[in-house]
């Protein structure tokens, strides 16, 4: 890696990033067009139909009143969990390899959170009344129910969204400034506003450093709490298979797991199509690979634990639950999940695998498919095996649901495509920090060393 970067100068990264913002090929526009088209046809059209027809457009039924919409919600929330969290952790531990990738990772957080919020709208029976779940003063003095796990969600996710958007913005103020001077027209004005008049004086750097660190410290516990709370939507119930103490850590691990896999995917794309080969390197994939390996092992551990406790409890409810999960209607999905998230990642043990790009991409996508399945199964298998056997029903997603899943991905892609044209998707100043500082020739050595 050193070999690659040795000849890199400050100006190079500068130019590369600015180019990534201002120079736009036809490929980009085509991709964006497709993404938007899919977004409209596969997300908004079915959703509007559902608004008109009612949730019945989805395949849900009486015991299984939750379905893929909520699964998607959890999935996207989960995906959001690596970006900012990872970035914060690495920032505090002050690790170098973070710097090239954290910006886009955080963007991923931001956008998956937005998609998640959208999934809530899709999930609701009467979304036009969603404002009732937000605390605002009114003449009736009627407020939301703060005892409800769902309201914890509302609070947590709002906070998380605010936090991570602020975090990514703060981190890129100096870059906005850097880009500001190199752009003209509306871009110049935009970056002038965004950079708030950043100059790069020692005071400004000092303040930014402090603020940034504080944010990081605040956001780490927040991120953990967010997914714990999401897990409590389930764990706070007394439904067999959902009412489990392990759920909070289980969800957090799962979230970081899928999030990290997501980062790998995004890194690959950036590297390949935004020409950041020099900045996003084998090193990053290697480290992410290791991380993935650890997480997958954790994840498998918790899964086995869940089965074990279920089996050990021996109650009819838990036991039927277990049987159904392993051999019931949804069993194929279950084993697919195990394969993708539990077995396949073991490949990461080999260095060669970790440092080769395409296989990593494939694996990361596989992992996220597996994780989506997991979220789906958590809902489908448990709710269709409630306490009273007479109410047992099988739930099969409808076309509308499937197409909305596809559409939500398109939404994410669209947002990300817009992002890379507005935000410097690689942090300029932090990459500069990792570079060797230029030397003035003929300068005495002692000055250079510090």
């Amino acid at each position: 890696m050193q070999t690659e970067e040795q000849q890199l100068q400050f100006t190079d990264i500068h130019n590369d990033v600015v180019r990534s913002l201002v120079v736009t090929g036809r490929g980009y526009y085509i991709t964006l067009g497709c993404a938007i088209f899919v977004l409209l046809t596969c997300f908004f059209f079915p959703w509007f139909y559902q608004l008109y027809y009612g949730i019945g457009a989805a395949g849900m039924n009486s015991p299984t009143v939750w379905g893929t919409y909520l699964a998607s919600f959890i999935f996207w929330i989960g995906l959001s969990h690596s970006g900012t969290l990872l970035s914060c952790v690495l920032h505090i531990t002050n690790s170098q390899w973070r710097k090239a990738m954290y910006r886009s990772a955080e963007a991923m957080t931001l956008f998956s959170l937005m998609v998640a919020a959208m999934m809530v709208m899709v999930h609701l029976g009467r979304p036009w009344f969603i404002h009732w779940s937000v605390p605002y003063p009114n003449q009736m003095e009627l407020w939301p129910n703060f005892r409800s796990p769902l309201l914890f969600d509302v609070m947590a996710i709002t906070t998380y969204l605010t936090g991570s958007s602020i975090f990514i913005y703060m981190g890129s103020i100096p870059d906005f400034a850097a880009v500001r001077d190199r752009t003209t027209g509306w871009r110049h004005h935009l970056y002038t506003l965004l950079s708030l008049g950043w100059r790069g004086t020692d005071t400004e750097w000092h303040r930014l450093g402090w603020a940034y660190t504080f944010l990081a410290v605040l956001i780490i516990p927040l991120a953990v709490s967010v997914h714990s709370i999401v897990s409590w939507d389930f764990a706070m119930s007394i439904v067999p298979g959902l009412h489990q103490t392990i759920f909070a850590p289980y969800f957090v691990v799962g979230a970081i797991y899928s999030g990290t896999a997501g980062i790998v995917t995004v890194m690959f794309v950036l590297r390949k199509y935004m020409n950041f080969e020099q900045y996003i390197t084998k090193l990053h994939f290697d480290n992410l690979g290791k991380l993935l390996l650890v997480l997958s092992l954790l994840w498998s551990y918790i899964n086995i634990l869940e089965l074990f406790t279920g089996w050990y409890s021996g109650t009819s409810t838990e036991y039927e639950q277990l049987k159904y999960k392993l051999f019931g209607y949804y069993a194929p999905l279950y084993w697919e999940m195990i394969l993708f998230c539990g077995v396949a990642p073991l490949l990461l043990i080999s260095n060669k695998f970790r440092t080769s790009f395409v296989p990593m991409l494939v694996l990361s996508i596989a992992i996220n498919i597996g994780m989506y399945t997991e979220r789906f199964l958590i809902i489908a298998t448990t709710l269709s095996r409630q306490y009273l056997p007479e109410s047992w029903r099988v739930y099969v997603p409808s076309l509308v649901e499937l197409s909305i899943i596809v559409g939500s991905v398109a939404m994410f892609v669209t947002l990300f495509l817009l992002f890379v044209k507005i935000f410097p998707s690689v942090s300029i100043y932090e990459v500069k920090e990792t570079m060797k500082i230029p030397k003035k020739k003929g300068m005495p050595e002692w000055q250079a060393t510090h």
Partner: protein
Amino acid sequence: MASNALGLFLDPDSALEAARRLKGAGFARPELISPIPIHGVEDVLGPKKSVIRRFTFFGGIFGALSGFTLAAGTAVLYLHPTGGRPIITIPPFLIITYEMTILFGILATVLGFLISARFPAIRERVYVPEAGVDRFAVTVDCDGEERFRRAEAILREAGAETVRSISEGES
């Protein structure tokens, strides 16, 4: 008219060195402008104190209070007994409190940052575009020919690539 002497350097260390000498020569607060944060500035120009931590702290406190008040207050405002739980239900309200703490902590931090770093910039300030890319600049305000010449001398001696005089806004 307040004019500044500006020296551009290729590397942070010489810039620091220049700043130190300027300070030593009795110039008021030389300022470094750089594309990346420079370490060790405080050893040279003396430690900086920032108010941000206070903002964060009190923001958090305020968040905690308002969080619990929101939950508990609204609960007793319109009594809705649910699930046989007491009206003021501590554990869930603590979660609300927790989230609100962090939310306000974050917002306060941002506020602190903006205030302490004097953002957004309304009036023009001394600014060096090169320093946004790959140069390290040292500015020191010095009115009067002879003070400028002294500053220039120090900067050049410290290995400044170029030295010129600028005033706010121009570059």
